[in-house]
């Protein structure tokens, strides 16, 4: 009896000692792990969501500084076109690309009607690579590079507003992101933004045939948007999903009518509020005619008597009458 009791007591105390030690061990591991992760995130801003500046944030800057920023933030638009999309190409030339500080069209094949940089290839990944290389070589003085397809409509002022409080000498790779397995990438249809630093690193890794081969990964063919993400990942640059300060998407891979249709079906009580951001940057899948409607809707149509005192000022482009 006594012997069993003492055995139980010694087992019990071992058990308790074990529990305590186990708890301490677990706590130590977790805290140490978190500490490591935390440390990393401050050096490499490894968030996946990135937001537009809030009015509060902007108002903290003095007015001359804000106006200076409006003028100094310069966007180089890279538009990848094909001759068979001529009507879209024409629409982009006549509409939103006029608001880029520089709009360069990169085509697979020369076309007499429009000026463009001919890349002499139909391979999508090669086109993207060469376009980015060309933009980098000619892009001194531009802080941000925006890649778009001709069926995408972009509002460059809202892009500039979004990028205002981000430092282009830091690596940024922003768009409408999607996860494919472990890889998070920005969908090309929604428009992709690279900071000058991100582009510099990318062009650097282009010469590495193992990490970022020209012919793409031979074993499994990735789309060019995914190839881009993989190459950037090797340089330590990760895709971030852009949202306005209310959490709404600003890069859209769908057209306005599709988004409204979806809102009508899902939230019929709050269609317009539930649909899209007030400061949306892109919509995709817009017909050439519809781009003219968007120019009117974004840059002209408004209700009289309502004014916004924005922190930035953007002037209309010269030689244009549809905005």
């Amino acid at each position, binding site marked *: 009896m006594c012997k069993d009791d003492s*055995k139980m007591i010694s*087992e019990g105390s*071992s*058990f308790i*000692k*074990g*529990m305590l*030690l*186990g*708890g301490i061990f*677990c706590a130590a591991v*977790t805290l140490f792990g978190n500490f490591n992760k935390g440390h990393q995130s401050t050096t490499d801003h490894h968030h996946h969501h990135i*937001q*537009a500046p*809030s*009015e509060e944030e902007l108002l903290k800057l003095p007015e001359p500084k804000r106006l200076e920023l409006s003028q100094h933030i310069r966007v180089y638009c890279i538009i990848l076109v094909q001759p068979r999309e001529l009507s879209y190409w024409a629409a982009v030339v006549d509409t939103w690309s006029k*608001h880029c500080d520089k709009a360069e069209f990169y085509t697979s094949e020369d076309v007499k009607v429009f000026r463009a940089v001919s890349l002499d290839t139909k391979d999508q990944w090669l086109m993207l690579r060469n376009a980015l290389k060309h933009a980098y070589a000619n892009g001194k003085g531009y802080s941000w590079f925006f890649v778009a397809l001709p069926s995408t409509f972009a509002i460059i*002022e809202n892009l500039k*507003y979004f990028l205002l409080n981000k430092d282009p000498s830091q690596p940024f790779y922003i768009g409408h992101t999607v996860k494919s397995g472990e890889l998070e990438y920005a969908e090309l249809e929604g428009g992709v933004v690279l900071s000058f630093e991100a582009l510099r690193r990318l062009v650097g890794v282009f010469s590495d045939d193992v990490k970022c081969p020209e012919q793409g990964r031979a074993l499994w063919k990735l789309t060019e948007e995914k190839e881009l993400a993989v190459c950037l990942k090797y340089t330590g640059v990760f895709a971030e999903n852009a949202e306005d*300060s*209310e*959490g709404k998407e600003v890069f859209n891979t769908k057209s*306005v*009518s599709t988004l*409204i*249709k979806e809102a009508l079906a899902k939230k019929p009580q*709050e*269609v*317009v*509020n539930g*649909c*899209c951001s007030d*400061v949306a940057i892109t919509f995709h899948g817009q017909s050439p*005619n*519809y781009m*003219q*409607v968007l120019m*009117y*809707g*974004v*840059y*002209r*149509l*408004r*209700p*009289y*008597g*309502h*004014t*916004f*005192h*924005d*922190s*930035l000022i*953007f*002037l*209309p482009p010269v030689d244009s*009458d*549809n*905005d």
Partner: protein
Amino acid sequence: MAASSSRCAFYLGFLVGTCILYFFMTLVWFERKFKMQPDSQVPSMAGQWGEENQSWRVEGSALINLRHPHLQGKSVSPTHVHFARVADQLYKKVRILCWVMTGPDNLETKARHVKATWSRHCNMVIFMSSREDPDFPTVGLGTKEGRDQLYWKTIRAFQYVEQHHSHQADWFLKADDDTFVVVDNLRWILSNYTADEPVYFGKRFKPYTKQGYMSGGAGYVLSREALRRFVKGFRTKVCTHTTSVEDLALGQCLEKMGVLAGDSRDSMHRETFHPFVPEHHLTVKFAKSFWYWNYCYYPIVEGPQCCSDLAVSFHYVDAELMYMLEYYTYHLRAYGYQYRYQPSLPEGVEPDSART
């Protein structure tokens, strides 16, 4: 023996301790993570032009706007500082009663979307149907439905409005359930005129009349005096139901009663009332044989200058386009953009205060 069973107990205890603390830490860490969410959940002013529900007070069949003036002239949301002082002044100065021509079969498919979008900006809105519906609500005009009933419905609707509401508004707008109207821009057009002038505005057509008449689908708006004269015309039999072509017949009656057909174009002579959808006016080249060329009172402009920045109406707008136009007008914009067209303030309206 005792030692090894103690050791087993120790290992078991170690395992249990680890597990317990793991679950505990997960819970605590999780909760802490939640608290650290960025303060993007600021109560959003997305409801500044909020949708639905708390917009109206119902008085019989009339919906009286509750939401204006906009939050005492200024509202701040995470995305913008928005001043509406000028719009609010016009709201009080230029009171508009909107009545929407609809029918029992269109309430769910069309009128409902008008109710959810542009009509919320009227001082008051009434939905007119052949049959009364207390839930929507609609007024029952006691007519049948159909194209040939359009003028009857119009006459009855204006008589109803004159009888019940003529002192509650300065201007009386008629629109279809597939017309989209930017009521703030209508107030701007009308701010140069008074309710006691016999005048009406719309998309002006020229045939069959001396002074022209206004397209029904694009919507037209009568001053209080014009409304009074229209109703008087029917009372005194100067006007009768001549044809079911509602817009022409109304134009002819008003002409007889000495009501002027006004020029609704903006200060750059661009049209504000439009009989088609924006895409059509902005991009389509009308065929030379199209009736439109012979009907327009003013010269047609094709391309971007077809339409004023301060457009008042579009027609043949389906449900989806209603919400899209509401989004373009009141929500989507280019941040910081300085508009090319900046008309001067109407008389008697004070500007927004300077940046605070």
